[in-house]
């Protein structure tokens, strides 16, 4: 098994927003989803996940509501706001630009 990587702060925000693009999700689900999509390469630490979620909520990029989870428990579901969607689009473009650039430099 390759070593798991911790995620940089700004990147985590981007990943969270991207995950939420599919629809409302609680914190546990978000961490599972990121781990799953990255094929276990990216490990989301709870110590960064929840502060990040609350920060995004305070910034108005996501909003939260209590609802029933798949196993019928009360959980806090986060979803993108209009600002969040816009922010995600911007950041995604930005990320692509930078990662392409980094890839080029490394390949070069």
């Amino acid at each position, binding site marked *: 098994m390759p070593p798991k990587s911790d995620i940089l702060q700004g990147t985590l925000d981007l990943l969270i927003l991207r995950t939420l693009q599919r629809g409302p999700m*609680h*914190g*546990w689900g978000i*961490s599972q989803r990121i781990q799953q999509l990255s094929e276990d390469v990216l490990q989301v*630490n*709870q*110590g*960064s996940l*929840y*502060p*990040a979620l*609350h*920060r995004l909520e*305070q*910034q*108005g990029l996501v909003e939260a509501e*209590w609802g029933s*989870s798949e*196993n019928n*428990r*009360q*959980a*806090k579901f986060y979803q993108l706001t*209009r*600002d969040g969607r816009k922010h995600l689009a911007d950041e995604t473009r930005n990320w692509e630009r930078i990662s392409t650039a980094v890839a080029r430099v490394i390949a070069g």
Partner: protein
Amino acid sequence: MLRRWRARLTSLFRRGRLERELDAELQFHIDMLAAQNVSQGMTPDEARRAALRAFGAVDMVKTDVRDAWMSRFFEVFAQDVRYGVRSLRRTPGFTLAVVGTMALGIGANSAVFSVVNGVLLRQLPYADGDRLAVMRQARPFAGIRDISFSALDIADYRRSRSLSDVVEYHNMWFILLGRNEPERVSTEVVSANFFDVLGIRPLYGRTFVASDDRPGAPAVLVLSHAYWQRSFGGDPTVVGRVFRMNDRPHTVIGVMPPMPDYPQAVDVYMPTAACPFRSSPHMANDRAMRMSGAIVRVRNDVDLRKAEADLALTAGSLVSAYPTKYPTDTMETRLTPLKDELTARARPTLLILLATTTFVLLIVCASIANLLVARIVGREREFALRAALGAGRARLIRQMLTESLLLAAAGGAAGLALADVSLDGLVSFAGRLTPRAAEATIDVRVLLFTLGLTIFTGLTFGIIPALGTRRDTASSLKDAGRSTERRHFVRSSLIVAQVAISFMLLIAAGLTLRSVFKLQELDPGFRVDNILTMRVALNFTKYQDAKIGQFWRTFEHGLVALPGVIDAAGGGTFPLNSTKLFNTTFVRENHPLAPGEIAPRVDVHVATPGYFRTIGQPLVEGRTFTDTDGVGDREVVVINQSMKRHFWPDVDPLGRRISGDDGKTWATIIGVVQDARQQLATAPADQVYVPLAENGPMLTMNWLVHTNLPPPVMERQIKALMRTIDPDQPVDEFRTMDEVRGESLQAPRTAATLLGIFALLALIITAAGLAGVIAYWVNQRTQEFGVRMALGAPRTGVVSLVLRQGVQFVVIGLAIGLAGALVLTRWIASLLFEVQPTDALTFLGVSAVMLTVAVLACLIPARRAAAVDPIVALRAL
């Protein structure tokens, strides 16, 4: 939308709920981790432990989440502040108006509160001050509340189980020699424990110790702070200097720190052993020689009422043990907490002032709220634009609140500066009501009060306009400034409230001002102009017995002979002076008291023969004194009309005799004079005038000179005269009768002036607010006025339409204010003199003023309405 706004507010104010939600959220995560572990084959217990391990330190996560909450809050706050400052700087006129109005409101409140705090709230500046009380002997059935204590009484009370200490004091005037001029000093003669019982430490040197108060001990003095500053320029080397007083050396051993002038303002303190009067065998050993007051410290485990009951036993045993020395009727011993003694007189006035400034602050809030509502109207498009760009209503409201708090902070700071500047004046006013006034400073409590007031004000005038904004901010892009009914209602209510409060304040000011006018116009019953008063206190050790009377005769003849003197006379005191008349019981000849009847009381006024002529107090019947009255055994008195009315209403009092010593000696009534007021606000009491020669030697006398010369010229002549009689004898306290009268009017006048200033402030703010609201109303109807005039309505019709709108507010406000005033003015009855709290004239006058000001305030926008050009207005449709 509103629900979300409430949720945001919750996040600000209700951390508890937020914390519980966070707990639930993290718990859910841990549970899910555990469930995953179970599905991978662990037992539930193992799964839970593994989940907790995997999750890590829950508290650390929570701390980080809380940081996320806070940093965001401050970030937005800083943004709001920056934005607020920018937008306020764009409208300097508005900002200045708000900050200025608010500075007045906060300044008035903080200044008055500083005094309330220093006088009423703060602990006494004595050690454990709430155990200190003033002790008085009283004869309740004779209406006497204050019988002084003899030296032996004090010794008996010292034995009481309820009291841990008793301080004895009395006040004397002595002459201090050794400075450039002989100086008459007010001397508090106190038992040696005075400073220790009150817990006063000296600023320099030491205070008295028991050995200073032993008979024959070297005489020592402690200087009061005020006297030390005034006469020695605050020079600490005065400690150790020796002055001559009462023909013996007195050494200054210490200087007092600033303290309330209690029992009174004095220059020096002296132990009882050094007072020639108090230490004479006659005074020290006779129970009937009562001269002292007493301050006591009540034991910590005894409450005041219990102590009184205990002291009553002491009083009772004194009466039964020495029946000839004490009154035969009930004698009580009463305790008044020292704090009440110091502040009771100031309390009602200070509380009235505080209530007044609170009302002013409410008007200030209303008026600023009104200005802010008007400002929002002007910024409607700006807000709409920001809303369209994604700012929520909550954010906009927060922005408005931030601006309000910024304004409030600036206003509060300016107000504090204003309070600081005006405090001195207020303190000197309060000084007439309480010796504690000097303790009023801007301390931590005042700062907190101002801060609280500032936040309250900011929130109040910040939230009111916010309530007037529409829910749906976006729609205002389309029709900014049209549907403004709600806002108009808010503004109208504010202006009505302002009118109502201003009306009440004006009524209060009007009533007190009328009282002062009544006091000023009052005929006190004697001549006020062209009279110069002065005081002469003879040196106790130099002048005794016959020498005293001789000195006064020499002085009187000298005064009358001075060029420019029309008349001159002396008296124990004179009207409106702070020295009180001696009050005593008397009996009428052939009119024995019925069993159980209480002997009547009368004020005794000692006067030289020229007194009535000098002060211009007219004789009603009989004659006044001559130089031979009171010499020998034929005693005579003159009574005033009030006394005649009470005791000889239908018969001629001339020739009848009264006695002040239970019939041992009798004095014949030879004349009746018109009543003279001893205090302006008090009706003249029954008074009897006794010739100086008959009264016996008096060491301190007040002298009056009737003259047309300027007072300073007269004063120089009189001082020169005194130097020829006795160069060591001071004569001082020169004041014209007019000044004396002015001083007695000072306290009510200042109270009325302060109320007047506050009410005027309220009126101006309200008038400006009214003009603003009407101007806005006119703006909204420009087109309507255009149409009216185009259809032939005269311009005067438009003017009256606008005026009617304005007057409508005022009439509603007046009605509310009237009801409020009728309820509230009874609380200021203590400030009123011969004016009813519901005085119709004041109410009518104030209503008229209010209406006139309102009409004037509306006239400006009304004229603008009339100046509308119908063509322009119609084209704008």
